[in-house]
């Protein structure tokens, strides 16, 4: 959990560094020591502070009339300070220098926008026109020509490599603030929009294409809203892989907030009644921002958050790799990259590779032919993924798979040609997935009418919402048997009781199921059309093809709650409802044939599942069933069958005592010291 500690004041600010946008400081940069910061105000002064002592260590200012235009940074390699004043004049000095006029000076040919300094790297100078030079290259020839890269009409972003990307235009909102970090060859760009959402954009670094601008798609990372009220962010920083801090205003007052992007929750907030300049910096677990007339420092704590920590079941993560149970400690996708230090190398590589694959493939149509590409890419992706999966065997792999599948599905949604079906089937069959782990998977499968995938999902997922179950049922009932015959459906649940070969239909002369025979039961009311009825409602033949039966069995097999299913079931078209009911009737009769009222085979529906669905369907469509002429016959046949069953069981009840006696005799026989029995092994 993240927490904000007590604030303290670092220093007071002059008249320029006040509250409100446009005022405040020019920038705050880290100093050579982790405890040092370099403050550059909007005037002529730069100050070096030691944060823990709350005191300045040094202060430098340019001459009157000059103005520092670019934040002072520290070159971590040489412990020198670099500043630019009046846009073009570069100054470099050391700690012991007092007067800025006497230090190294270089006048450049173009206006400098920023200088970026990183540990173990030469500082980079970014020009206002978009050109970038490292400091040493620049100092060799200060007057060199700097190219203009940025054109004004596009919103473009630069990174350290000179690639150009075009961001998807967002309607009605503008980006307010960007921040980015690099992780394993991928730039993650986080972008705060004026719609109060933080978006995440992934940009691969190794990009060898010299084509035109690429459009980057972005994904919503966080929505800044606190139960109705909207936080108007002006500035934000990334704290770690799943925390961001936002400085912004909530209704009237401004506040500093820490958000968890994984759980989308507000972790900590601090009201800043005196107002801020909208700038926020964060170095070494400390926030720096202007609050009223002072520069305030707030120390924060930000621990890796996990569901386990939240519910108080956090165990020592060292032991977690022993466990083969689902590890809640490391559930989450980005977390894989950082938290599992021990297995980092493999994991990191695979993860980053995956990301490369999963990002939308650019310029597909231009590069390749139209039809050829789809196959190639899907197969290639499947191949790649399979390799990755075979390599990485880790206990928390489950969670990663969920993320991979979600990513794949997102891609499927974006690109209708892309559908790695075999891979998805394999994943669902091999791993213990659930609906909630990849919620959009079934929706996409429904859209594509991929009945086999749906069947597997229904069989394996424990938590499918009733709405989706219904949607599956509807799709299954609407697809024609002819079409299904050509598709690959798992027939395991039906082969045991439906004869698959269609020509193999021998009509039995008389069927007596648990004491009931359709012929023997006489009921005078529907003599007319008896023959047709027999053909139509005959329970000897399955009213649907084996493929459809297998799919319907999968629906019967899935868990549901009546209350939630019933409203959906009411929407089922009458014809389909009748067909389904006929199939259920068929199953019911089939079940009753056996003494133990179970259907043989694996995953075949139980009698209670059949009965429950029957009742549910009748409840949902009662009026329609009563009205439909073809349903009438079915209903009467069912009624007769049920009545016969009831009668049969009541008779059984009467002889219960005798049956028990038989049972007792059998037990007695069992206790004999010796017997010769017949055992059949099949």
């Amino acid at each position, binding site marked *: 959990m993240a927490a904000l500690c007590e604030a303290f004041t670092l220093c007071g600010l002059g008249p320029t560094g006040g509250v409100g946008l446009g005022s405040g400081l020019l920038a705050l940069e880290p100093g050579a020591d982790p405890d040092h910061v370099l403050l550059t105000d909007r005037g002529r002064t730069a100050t070096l502070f030691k944060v823990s002592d709350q005191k300045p260590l040094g202060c430098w200012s340019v001459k009157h009339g000059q103005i520092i235009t670019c934040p002072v940074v520290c070159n971590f390699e040489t412990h020198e300070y670099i500043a630019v004043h009046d846009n073009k004049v570069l100054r470099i000095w050391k700690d012991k220098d007092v007067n800025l006029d006497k230090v190294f000076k270089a006048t450049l040919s173009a206006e400098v926008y920023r200088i970026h300094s990183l540990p173990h790297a030469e500082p980079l100078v970014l020009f206002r026109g978009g050109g970038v030079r490292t400091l040493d290259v620049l100092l060799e020839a200060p007057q060199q020509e700097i190219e203009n890269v940025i054109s004004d009409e596009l919103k473009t972003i630069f990174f350290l490599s000179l690639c150009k990307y075009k961001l998807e235009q967002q309607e009605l909102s503008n980006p307010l603030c960007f921040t980015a970090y690099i992780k394993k060859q991928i730039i993650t760009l986080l972008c705060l929009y004026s719609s109060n959402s933080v978006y995440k954009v992934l940009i691969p670094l190794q990009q060898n294409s010299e084509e035109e601008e690429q459009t980057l798609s972005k994904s919503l990372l966080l929505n800044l809203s606190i139960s109705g009220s909207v936080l108007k962010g002006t500035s934000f920083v990334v704290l770690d892989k799943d925390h961001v801090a936002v400085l912004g205003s909530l209704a009237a007052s401004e506040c500093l907030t820490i958000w968890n992007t994984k759980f989308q929750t507000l972790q900590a907030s601090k009201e800043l009644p005196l107002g801020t300049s909208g700038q926020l910096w964060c170095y070494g677990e400390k926030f720096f921002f202007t609050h009223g007339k002072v520069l305030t420092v707030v120390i924060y704590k930000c621990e890796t958050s996990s569901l386990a920590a939240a519910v108080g079941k956090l165990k020592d993560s060292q032991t977690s790799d022993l466990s083969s*149970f689902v590890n809640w400690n490391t559930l989450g996708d980005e977390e894989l990259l950082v938290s599992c230090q021990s297995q980092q190398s493999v994991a990191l590589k695979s993860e980053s590779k995956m990301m490369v694959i999963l990002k939308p493939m650019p310029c597909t149509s231009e590069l390749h032919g139209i039809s050829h590409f789809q196959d190639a890419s899907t197969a290639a992706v499947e191949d790649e993924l399979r390799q990755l999966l075979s390599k990485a065997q880790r206990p928390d792999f489950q969670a990663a798979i969920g993320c991979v599948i979600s990513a794949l599905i997102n891609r499927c949604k974006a690109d209708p040609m892309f559908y790695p079906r075999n891979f998805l089937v394999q994943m669902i069959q091999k791993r213990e997935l659930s609906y909630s782990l990849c919620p959009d998977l079934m929706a996409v499968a429904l859209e594509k009418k991929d009945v086999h995938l749906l069947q597997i999902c229904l069989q394996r997922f424990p938590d499918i919402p009733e709405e989706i179950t219904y949607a599956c049922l509807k799709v299954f009932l609407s697809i024609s048997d002819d079409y299904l015959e050509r598709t690959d459906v798992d027939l395991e649940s039906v082969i045991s009781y439906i*004869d698959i070969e269609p020509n193999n239909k021998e009509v039995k002369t008389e069927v007596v199921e648990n004491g009931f025979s359709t012929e023997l039961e006489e009921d005078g009311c529907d003599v007319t059309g008896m023959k047709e009825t027999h053909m139509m409602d005959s329970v000897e033949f399955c009213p649907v093809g084996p493929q459809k039966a297998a799919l319907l069995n999968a629906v019967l097999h899935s868990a549901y709650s009546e209350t939630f299913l019933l409203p959906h079931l009411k929407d089922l078209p009458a014809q389909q409802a009748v067909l389904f009911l006929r199939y259920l009737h068929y199953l019911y009769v089939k079940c009753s044939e056996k003494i133990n009222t179970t259907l*043989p*085979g*694996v995953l075949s529906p139980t009698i209670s599942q059949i009965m429950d669905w029957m009742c549910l369907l009748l409840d949902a469509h009662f009026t329609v069933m009563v009205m439909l002429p073809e349903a009438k016959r079915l209903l009467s046949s069912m009624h007769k069958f049920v009545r016969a069953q009831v009668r049969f069981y009541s008779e059984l009840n009467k002889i219960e005592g005798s049956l028990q006696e038989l049972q007792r005799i059998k037990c007695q026989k069992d206790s004999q010291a*010796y017997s*010769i029995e*017949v055992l059949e*092994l*099949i």
Partner: protein
Amino acid sequence: MGEFEVHRVRFFGLVPAGVRCMAYQHRGCRLALARTDGAVEVYNFAANYFMEKAIPGHQARSVEALCWAAGERLFGAGLSGDITEYDLERLRPARTVDGFGGPIWSMAANNDGTRLAIGCEDGSVKLFQVVPGGVQFEKNLDRQKGRVLCLSWHPSGTHLAAGSINFIRVLDVRSGRTAQRIMVNYHVPKSKKRECVVWSIAFLSSGTVISSDSFGRVQFWDWERGTLQDSHTVSTSAVLSLAVSEEEDSIVVGTSAGATYQFQLLPVKAGGQEKRWVRTKPFQHHTHDVRAVVHTPTALISGGLDAQLVIRPLMEKVQKKGYDAVLRKFTFPHRRLVSCARKARLLLFQFSQHLELWRLGSTNKTGKDGEVLPVSRMPEHLLQLKSKGPEHIYCSCVSPCGSWIAYSTASRFHLYRVQHEGDSISVKKVPGVPKLLLPAYQLQCASDSGRLFVASDRGSVHVVQLLEPGGCKHLHTLRPPTGTREAVYLLASSADGNWLAAVSGDWEVHIYSLKHFKHHCTVPTYSCAVTALAIHPATNNLFISYSDQQLFEFSIPEKQYTAWSRMVQNSGLHKLWLERDSPITHIAFNPKNTSQILLHDVYMLCVLDKSLPLPDNNTLLVNQSTLKQLSEPARRRQLHAFKICKKFQPLLFADLLDERCLVTVERPAVDISAELPPPVQQKKFGT
């Protein structure tokens, strides 16, 4: 596949002896267990709790206490007054030393296993040093009246706690003096005062002495002050046994009502420093006295007079869902006590001190699956052979023709010639049996009844020729080329009389050629114990089952695993098969169908059909009842190699008499409990 006529035998009146005491060796993950008849068994927890060694009992050698000391040496002491060291390679007592204190009631080894303390009938506690080649008397500690029923060393080895009737003593080991004497029945009102027997005691490194007594109390004492810290009454009957975990934060006690309880040292407040002993988990796995408990790092083990050994895993300590995470109960030995004369249809039952020979009945009817056929001739008890002397029987066998019976005790080997003349039967002891190195650990008759193979120590097997009308001759002794110290415990001979396979205690399987009396080859070493093996009569493939439930088939002529065996290893056996409880104890073959193999353990018998595909983890393993409901074409799709029948339980033996006739020997638990003394009466509400 077909129908079998099953001779369902339930007249094998085996009553396994109760568990008397246990000792766990942490380093080797082995549990030594002594039964009330003096038998000692060693279970290897690393090999799926397989009963690796068994030393048969002795009438005069009761074992009251077992200790592992000096690494892997096992010592026992009993009411005979001797300390016995067991030879776990030759499976017999190696040497005994008299304690000179009358019957020994208790024995404890100190932490580093260098000293043994014994508690005697005369009230003395004696120290023995464990030296190479035995134990040596060191000294007597302070003697007081009353037998010493339990002993426990302080982990530092400086003090000993001894429990007697009515009091506990703490003895200083160096001076030999009594440092503290605690009366345990002090708080009992005078009118009710009766003897309070301290049954078990434990000395913790913190100085706490835990005692369990006949009043049903578990008490925690501060030994230096002699004060009672805590007392829990767990039962109205006696608390007989007590064991402490290595971390000393958990104890387990067993009561005479068959219940076991776990106590844990838990902080009074979450996160607080102050800790108290709290009774946490009650278990009721036994019907009778729990005489022995052991606390391993991951499980509570209890053994009772109802002969059951129960291993109850502590789920909070088990990280992985696997073989160790399941409750295990063992009642029967992992050995075969029945041998069968297939041709003569005789069964030989081995009891601890006698043998019974039975002839199976017959029927002249046939029937459908599940039917009980009328018995036209009842089974007949032909013979009872009582072993003379106090020694228990190691092994026995009857020849396939039924005319030879052999058995061995620790020091004697007996061979009998049985003559069947019509309905009458006569037995003649074969004179002049060769002087073999005894005991024999396993006996096996060749299929033509012409030879007897006698498993002996140091990996050797003696071949004895059986001569008509009643004689025998020692032909040869087969020895492994590399030499081993372990005794042979399983034998299998081929039907053509050419091959013999022998398994020694180091799990090496050696194959000998009987034509040339020569070592033929060795099966590649596998890291688990062999539980059964047999040679196929037609192909001469050796079929081996291991205690981790793996099955291997090794071609003797080709000296390599068969293609089928490789296929099994590649595709893996079904998950449920590997998770089974008890090891396969017997393998037999269908004489008419070379692809069918009969295997059985205590809970199932299985006909393995090698011609059918192996089941994968998604298919139903035990699918016979499902198959019976299916139509013929649907059946064919569902068939797999394992045809498992769980109808006969608990199954001690199963064999194929011919291709259509099976014999099963069951021992229902009800029948055993009927022969046990009545348990402690417990008042049940409403009775």
